[in-house]
């Protein structure tokens, strides 16, 4: 017993070291969204390509939906763009864009130049929907189930590795839920 107490400080320091070392490899940007489990916020905004078409949260209902927050001022969005084009070919999900605090002309040109992967892009010039979604930068991607409930928020670029690790299991689960009629 006496011997154990003598080693207690050493044990405590090692334990503290382990905790702090783990902290080094954590990503501080990786925060859970406050909106996971809540319905998609209400909105009523124009689409990027058609300023006469007003879309709302009801337009996203019924499918397994990805909402990708993007902008032309965001260099990482350019990096993830080819992967999004790939994801858009997946028939089991629908990919929508949320053009966040951007200029319409530039954004339209970008989609023409790089190929438009989105069913449509919501044009959120003022960032109001972004604010309601708790967006703090671009790119960010939200997974919304067929009931319109936000199931995941991912901040950062999507590539093949991230897609496999972060999204594929959840999408598979959602497809299963939808099949079972949940």
């Amino acid at each position, binding site marked *: 017993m006496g011997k154990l107490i003598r080693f207690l400080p050493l044990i405590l320091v090692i334990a503290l070291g382990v905790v702090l070392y783990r902290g080094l490899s954590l990503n*501080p940007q990786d*925060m859970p969204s*406050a909106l996971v489990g809540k319905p998609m916020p209400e909105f009523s905004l124009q689409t990027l390509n058609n300023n006469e078409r007003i879309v709302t949260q009801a337009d996203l209902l019924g499918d397994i939906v990805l909402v990708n927050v993007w902008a032309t001022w965001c260099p990482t969005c350019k990096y993830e763009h080819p992967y999004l084009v790939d994801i858009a070919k997946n028939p089991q999900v629908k990919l929508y864009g949320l053009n966040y605090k951007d200029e319409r002309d530039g954004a339209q040109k970008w989609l023409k130049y790089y190929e438009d992967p989105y069913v449509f892009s919501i044009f959120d010039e003022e960032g109001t929907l972004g*604010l309601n*979604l*708790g967006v*703090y930068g671009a790119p960010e991607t939200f997974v919304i189930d067929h009931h319109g409930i936000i199931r995941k928020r991912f901040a950062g670029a999507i590539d093949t590795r991230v897609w496999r690790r972060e999204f594929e299991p959840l999408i598979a689960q959602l497809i299963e839920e939808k099949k079972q009629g949940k």
Partner: protein
Amino acid sequence: MRLISIFLLAVAIIVGVNQASASPVETFEFRDEVTKIRFQALSKELRCPKCQNQNLADSNSPIAQDLRKELYELLQQGKADSEIVDFMVNRYGEFVLYRPRVSGLTYILWFGPAVLILLGIIVVIVVVRRKPVDKKTLALSVEQQDKLKKLLNDK
């Protein structure tokens, strides 16, 4: 005299030019002094989600600017502090609060230090109050004395 006036004029021009070229700073017009103080207090209490070690008042990131604007709008609408905090937490999570609310998740943050101090005090008290060893118990008993003598004599 004339030199001085020219000098003053030059100073005025320089100051004027500097003011004109200063970076644009947001200006908010508050209804009253209380609202202004509340704005300042809240923007110090709320954390910028992007630049995580700065509060809204400190940060220049676009999201912090947006949130300051939103904060101002909410104050102008006459929202209470608690409503504004709820608004932010509902969107950005508990993380935006520099002083997290007391909940199951944050008990260790709130009470951990007090518990540690208490533990320390208890340890100190126990150590200090431990009775010093009695000298009589340290002394050798008669048998031990005999044994010792024998040993010494053997040599």
